[in-house]
């Protein structure tokens, strides 16, 4: 197996709550390879979203090191780390949230194009991505003109259109009904397989979690000294 797309070593993060520093993550170590999918589960407040934020550079760890697509970051937060993280998010890391992944002023197609443009891709084919996700007819609609499931599928189209090495999905089906959620999940896993990228998925949904290759329960790896 090749070197991991993502390698995390001794990652710790604390939050200040009511004047006290409360550890959320402590000494977490993991690695994810291309084509591999990892589900992060745990009860609310266990640090799922925090972990995802740390993995895409939106938050800084207190301790530990992260290596993504060959780029290494440690807790010292070098002056250029923000720029490197941004570059990674533009080209290599796709992020999907529970909702509001789309610019409301742009049509689905325009959203995909914008994302692709940011990823530095100039070739066409954005419409193909939408078609592959079953949104060919909705390509010129605006986010408020499509259903929640369609919007999430469009968000997936955007992510895949940028040809990412790693997808971070935070409760991507959290606001959808069962049926739609299954549809979206199906799309996600199919595409992930097809493109061979790595996927890290934070979810409460055990059905969704069990579709992943591996599972990390943050509640179970409760850091020492915590509650």
């Amino acid at each position, binding site marked *: 197996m090749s070197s991991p797309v993502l390698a995390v070593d001794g990652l710790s993060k604390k939050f200040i709550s009511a004047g006290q520093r409360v550890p959320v993550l402590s000494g977490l170590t993991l690695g994810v390879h291309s084509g591999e999918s990892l589900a992060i589960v745990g009860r609310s407040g266990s640090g799922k*979203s925090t972990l995802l934020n740390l993995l895409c550079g*939106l938050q800084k760890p207190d301790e530990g090191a992260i290596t993504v697509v060959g780029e290494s970051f440690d807790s010292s937060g070098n002056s250029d780390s923000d720029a490197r993280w941004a570059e990674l*998010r533009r080209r290599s890391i796709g*992020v999907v949230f529970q909702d509001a992944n789309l610019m409301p*002023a742009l049509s689905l197609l325009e959203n995909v194009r914008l994302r692709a443009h*940011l990823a530095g891709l100039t070739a066409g084919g954005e419409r193909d991505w939408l078609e592959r996700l079953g949104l060919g007819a909705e390509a010129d609609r605006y986010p408020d003109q499509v259903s929640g499931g369609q919007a999430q599928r469009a968000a997936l189209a955007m992510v895949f259109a940028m040809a990412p090495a790693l997808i971070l999905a935070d409760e991507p089906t959290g606001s959808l009904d069962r049926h739609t959620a299954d549809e979206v999940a199906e799309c996600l896993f199919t595409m992930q397989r097809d493109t061979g990228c790595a996927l890290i998925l934070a979810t409460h949904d055990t059905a969704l979690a069990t579709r992943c290759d591996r599972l990390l329960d943050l509640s179970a790896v409760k850091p020492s000294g915590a509650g």
Partner: protein
Amino acid sequence: MMLVRAFVSHYRRHPIQLAALAMMIVLATMLWTGVTVLTDQARNSLFQSEEAVAARVHVVRSDGEPIGVNDFVALRLAGACIAPWLEIQRPPPEGRVIGIDLLAMGCFGDAAPGGEAGTLDGAPFVDISEAVRLSGEEYDSRLYLLAASENPALPDGYALREFSLGPATGELADSFLLNLDALSLLVLLITGLLVRSVHRLGIAQRQHSFDLLHRFGVPRRRVRQLLALELVVLTGVCVLPGLWLGAQLAGMLGGGFGQALDSLFDVTLYAGSTESLPWQAAGIMVLLVLAVCLVDWVVPQTWQDAAVSGRGQLVAVAVLLVGLASVALAQGLAGVFLGTALVFAGTGWLTPGLLAILAQRRADGAEVYGTGPLIRWRLRELAVMFRHLALPVVALQFAMATVLAVQALVTTFENTFEDWLAQRLEAEFYVQVPPGADASLAAKRLSELEGIGPWHRVIRGKARITAGDSGKAMGAEGESVSADLFALTPIGDLVSDWTLLASVDQPWQNLERGGVMINEQLARRHRIEVGDPLRILLAGTEASTSVVAIYADYGRPAGEVLMSGAELPENFSARFESFSVNPGELAMADISEQLGSIWNTPEVTVRDNASIRALASQVFSQTFLLTRAISILTLVLAAVALLIMGWVFFTTRVWYFRLLGIWGLPASAIRSQLRRLSVTLTLTVTIAALPLGIWLTWVLVSRINPLAFGWSLPMDLYPFFWLELGAIAVLTGLVIAQLMRRQLVHRVSDKQVEA
């Protein structure tokens, strides 16, 4: 109680919104109160001054000779109730004074000067003996004999004429006040829009809690009542400091305003004539706030939807067209003001939609690839902002248009005034020829002086002129008309810069050869054109000549004839003579000493035109201080409102900027997008304000001015000021971007943190 707490909690969570609403109301009340106090004072003063000029007719001699003291005596002895009115035209800053004889006005009875305005304190009335003393030989003076009634028994040889003081004082000042009123109404409109926009924003944010209350069983009517009560309380609380500030503003500007009225219109402002705070202004404010905020309950939703629909837009276009037409065609000021209001309404109605469509079009036209997608996104966001910030956008547009028009008007006035001054004060020094002194000797001496700059001798008097051919009737009954005569010798550099509205080739040479020039007013009033033959009666001799040029007179109402001094008949008796002198290499003191020795008088009256000019300009700037202050305050208010609104509105869009960051756009690039967005917004508003502002300038200069003043100003545009305004817009945009950016920074990825 719980209900009230639920109401208040919104503002506890959004104190800035409350502060913005309160500030709008305070500022609006302040502006409105300030202007109301000032215009009320001015109106009172004006009314009193008009009382002082109750006479509407004056007596002239049938033989056309100027009226004199003898005529006054003869008429009074014959039992006619007439009173003298001696006008002295002095250059600013003193301005015009009018000499009257209150004793003679006694026979006017109750129609005579009554009220407080007639105090003989030189503003503008003085006792006629004092007026004579003031005028000396130096200034133009003209005696009128006012008659009390339309039909006094007049002896033979006299006739009645309408008495008007050139452009009537009352109308001038009325128009000034009318303009001010219109301006303050516009301010009121703008602030109304702003209050509404802030309030509606709050309502939108609170809609959810209102729905919740409704679900908890609170009737919607009760919610509305509470909302209205909240507004009444808020307005009531804010109106008080507004009133106080307005009174302070009026007090601050009152001095300059009073001087403006005084110097422009001879209306004395009686400070403090409004003793108490203008409570009616408070009432108007409360009504305004309630009206703009609660209009949604009155106007059916279908109407509101229709207003922004295609059919609504059509109506707006119709309103705009009707407004434009009525401004262009109106015969009276009221029509022009109404038309202007319609144009503003139509424009305000259409602008946000049009700008949004424009942004949309530009977005659609952006490249599909390359940087296109980002530009497209930004323009789409801009379109959204135009729609959501429609009210403050329109307010800013109106404010900018107003500022632009006021600036153009004031500058036009200023330039005209400068030209007028330059024409009247053409040389550096002005030397008065003492009565009885020989001006020819002095002229000879001046021509012999080595190193002296350009100079000329001005001989002033009266002339009667008749159009040379029979086709043109000069006066109402075809008689000749009297005009002020200016004879110059030599004709040189001092006058050749005059603005000639029309002229033959080589006008000044033709003037030297016996032609005459006439002023704009004379030409207009009697439809005389360049090249027209003219008969001119001077000292009993009639000569034929022709008009070689018409010169700009900048609104001086009296007819003027300018000719070469060499063409004057021998026996012409000058009313007054003077020299305009640029000393050149010589010292003015030496020149005046030489003149003094010729005239055998130790004291030669020398006027330093530069100082007069400086004083005049100073008075002028004070004159328009108020107009400028109001329009700029409005602009500031509108800009601040847009700022606040932009900020508040941005809270609903901040996520999408963050999304860009998540998608890997560097922070600096996001800031740049923000700046571009907000600067485009304010700049576009400025550009949208330009046509409206230019149109408003045209209305002020070419419609309101002629209707109110009787003469029109040249319409000039000042693109440099547009640039200044653009710079202000850019600055506002940058400040908005800065405020947005703070939100972006302060709430980094809390969306994720919350999860």
